[in-house]
Every structure is written in C-alpha cells, then in structure tokens.
C-alpha cells in the first residue's frame, strides 16, 4: 500500500511539475510574442525610414562598383559618395524603449551630416507632451527595464528576380534582434522591401 501511495504521489508530482512547466512556457511564449510584435514594428519602421530618402541620398545609395552595401551578419559602415556628397553611412542602429516616470521614451540612432552617430530621444509624456530632442553625440544612459533592440540592414542593387537582374530597383533588408535572451527563445525578425 505504501508503495502504491508513493507511486500515486510521484505521478501527481510529475503532473504538477508538467503543469507548472506548461504555465511557464505559456508566460514565456506570451512575452516572446510581445517582443516579436515590437521587432516587427521596428523592422517596418526602419524600412519606411529608408524608403523616405531620395534615391540619390548616400544613405540608400549603392555605388556602381558594388551590388550590396551594409550587412546583416555584422555591424557595418561605409564611406558612400553620391551627387557630390560623401558620407560615412552606418548600416545599424539601436532602438531603446522604456516606460517609466511618466514618460514613454524611445531612443533611435542615426547619423548627422558628417556620418557621426546621433542619438535622438523621443519622449511622450502622460501630460500630453511629445518631442524629439536634437542630436546627442553620446548615447544617453539606459534606465533599468529598458528594452534594447539592435537593427542591421543591407541594400542590394540591382535586384535579381528569377535569375533576371533588374536595374534601378533596390532591395532593402532589415534584421531586428533583441540581444538579451528571454525565456521563450530568441527574438529575431527580418523583413525586406523594394524601392526605386
């Protein structure tokens, strides 16, 4: 009888632990889903940002000597010349998101006219104010609880479609990653768009 009771307890314990693990996985899945949703939004946002530039802007220009600028495997920057303007173009940035102390803060990285990194801090307060500050040359301090997403992108031209090379079209591919690991698995999202 003791053996039977112990076996029942073990079975009960195993079931209980399974249930607990399931609950943890559900929570982790929900959390990862939320981060993936943000990553999707940030990828779309970067694509929109890069579509905005005129085709002759160094930020989106692919020199005739190349078929690709930027990259997804490593942080890259290149000196690009176009229409008499030479700029050190950076093909990666960080977006930092935090909610606290009465303000939603978003920090994005871009470059100034000389290609130096610029940190723009957007603040949306509970009191109804929204503003984006001017270029900061150094990254602002990261408060605890801040989500930091890292973005890399590359621009290809000409674009090959079904083995046919199509000129005057650029394909922009953006990869968004959450560098810090979370329980539900890696957060990584990639998206592409075509533009003239």
């Amino acid at each position, binding site marked *: *009888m*003791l053996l039977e*009771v*112990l076996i029942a*307890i073990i079975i*009960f*314990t195993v079931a*209980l632990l399974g*249930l*607990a693990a399931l*609950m943890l996985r559900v*929570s982790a899945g*929900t959390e990862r*889903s*939320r981060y993936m*949703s*943000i990553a999707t*939004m940030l990828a*779309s*946002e970067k694509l*929109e*940002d890069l*579509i*905005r*530039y*005129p*085709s002759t*802007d*160094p*930020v989106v220009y692919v020199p005739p000597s190349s078929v690709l600028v930027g990259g997804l495997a490593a942080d890259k920057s290149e000196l690009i010349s176009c229409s008499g*303007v030479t*700029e050190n173009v950076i093909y990666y940035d960080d977006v930092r*998101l935090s*909610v*606290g*102390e*009465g*303000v*939603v803060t*978003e920090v994005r990285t*871009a470059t*100034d*006219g*000389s290609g130096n990194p*610029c940190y*723009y801090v*957007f603040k*949306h*307060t*509970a*009191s*109804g*104010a*929204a*503003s*984006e*500050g*001017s*270029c900061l040359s150094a990254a602002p301090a990261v408060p605890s609880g801040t989500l930091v997403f890292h973005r890399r992108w590359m621009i290809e031209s000409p674009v090959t479609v079904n083995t046919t090379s199509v000129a005057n079209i650029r394909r922009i591919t953006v990869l968004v990653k959450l560098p810090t690991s979370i329980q539900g698995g890696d957060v990584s999202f990639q998206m592409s768009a075509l533009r*003239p």
Partner: protein
Amino acid sequence: MTKHRELTGVNRGYEPGASAGLTLLELMVALCVFLILGSAAVMLVRSHVALYPSQQGQAALNIQLRNSIAQMQIDVMNAGVDYYPGVNAPGAPIGLTIQNQTNTNCFNSATRIYEASCFDTLTILAFDSIPPARPTETYDITSVNRMTLVPANATTTTAAQLAAAYKKNSELLLITGSISPDTGTPKFMTVYLSEDAVVDGSTVTIAWTPGDIVKATNLPDPSGTYTGYYNKNERYALATYPPGGYPAMTTTSTFDTTAVVLKLSPIVYWVKTTDPHNPQLVRTEKQQDAVIADSIVGFKVGAMTWGGSQSSAAGDESPTYLYDPNSYKPPYDFSLIRSVRISLIGRTAINPTSNFVNSFDGGHYRVEAVSAVVSPRNLSMHDQ
C-alpha cells in the same frame, strides 16, 4: 498449498505477523507530502488565475494597438492617392495634415482623466473617385460665394456626373494651376457646399456660405510676413493649427481657369473623449465614425519635413520628427511633410483593487506604447 501461496503471494497479507496496511507514521508522511504538493499546486493555480486576466488584458491591448497602427499605416501610405485622376494637375506633395496639440497640462493625475487636448488629430487627404473640374473664369472666393465649373476632361466626364457627386456639405479642394514662388508648390483652399450643385448645359455651379473664406489676421509667424486665408468652417483637411487654424504659406483665395477642383473624402484619426474614463481612437471616413481602439491615453503624430527648419548634408531636411507646427519652415506648411511617426499609448481596464501601479501615470492598469514611422508614398515619390 503452503508452497503455492508463498510462490504466488496470494493472501500474504493475511499471514500472521504480516502488515495489515499503512502504519500511522507512513500515513502521516504521505499526508504531509500530499499537503505540501497540494499547497504548492493551489498557490500556483491561484497566482496564475490572478495573472491570467492581466495577461489577457495586455494581449488584447497589444492586438488593438497593432491593429490601429496597421490601419493607420495603410491609410497614411495611400495619403493623396487619386490626386492625379487623369489630368495634368500640379505636382504638389499633398497627402495629409496634422493638428498637433501643445497643451501639456491635459492629464488630471487625481482622476486619471485625459482631456481631448492630450491628443493630436491626423487627417489623410483622400479623394473621391469623381474626376476633377476646373473653374470657367478667375474667382476670388472671398468676394463671391458661387463658382461655375467644367469637367477637366469633358470626354470622360459630364457636367451631370459632376453635379451628382457635388452634394450639399461636400468638401471640395481647390488647387492653383501655377506654382507659388515662395513655397515651390501650388496653393490651396477648401469650400463646403451649402447646396447641391446645379447643372447648366456643360457647366456646373457650386455655392458656399458667404464669408466662409476669410483672410488671416493673426498669423502665427513671428516675423508677420506670411499672409494666408482660411476656411472658418474647416474642421480637418487644411486645418493644421487648432482650433480651426490655417497653413500660412499654402493657402490662397484666387483660382483661375488652370486651377483644379477635387472632391475630398478625407479620413480622420482622432480621440473621442465623450466618456472621460475611456478615450477612444476613432477613424472617421465619409462622416462615419468607427472606434478602432479603446482606452487610449496617448496619440501624437510627428512629421519629418522636407526643407525643414534643420538641415543635413544629405538634403534640406529636418533630421528629427517635429511635434510643433511652428517648427516647420515655413510654419504650418503641411506640403513639407515627407514622413510621419505615429505614437500610440493604450491602457488595460482599470482595476482599483489591484496592487499593481504602472510607472507611466501611476494608474492601476498596465500601459503599452507602440510607434510606427510611415512614409506617404504620394509625397516621398515626389522627391525621388
């Protein structure tokens, strides 16, 4: 028989001296283990039950914010579509206007109520499918309240078709045929029809209320050099400065035979605060309101402009998103907008019994924010 019982174990419990069941100690140990595991299970389930509605609320909030942003992305991308419906209209970048609110004292932290002045308004200038028309002569619409029009392309559109579309309360956008030297774009004005259009042979006559179009006397330009006109009944389309404001450099009152007249069908995003405890994000199209998100506590729209107040080596463009129309160069000129960032903040249902207090506004609910950058295609393509 004895040997058989020993081998099979049958009735071993009834052997003299064998165990008759659990001892008290064994039973106590088993009960203790069961109690510990049972308590752990109950605590786990109880904590999860408390967490479940919160997670569900946050998931629902996330979904409605994403859906709202997705809807706005589609509309903003298509802003200004049908601006060139078959005629050689001026190539002005026209697609959306933003009414930024600059009140920074719109939130009551005691009652957790957000007033209407916390939220911006975004208007997407979509056009009706009816082809454009042109004036038959030069009009100064501040001195008259009637105008005769002809279809811009008489071979594809009849006067009767125009009149059928131009009903009372329709909003028409008038655009000059020439480019203004001070802005590099055409100039605009809107009129709201006070009665149905009337057909007279191959022409159509439209009418608006006398005095609708007025000359601005207090332009918000510190130098005072800008002049402009505005439609005092204008609610959204060209109203970029609340309340009922006017874009200083982009409006005019004079339209000649090269001007284009288009029927507007704008889409407006705004926050309805009729229920102060539940501000709702509303999408208005053809004067029909549709609530697309509940419990909105932040809606701001910023614009990156072409020829903005700040410049970069890559182009005369503002590197930051502007949330104050005065920052535009010139102020309030919506035709400079090339890219917008929409920032939306929502909250879950208020739960006063919850111990949770968010760090955004101190309320007993969770807060989530999303933002999206969108480039209206009809505007950015102009600069390619």
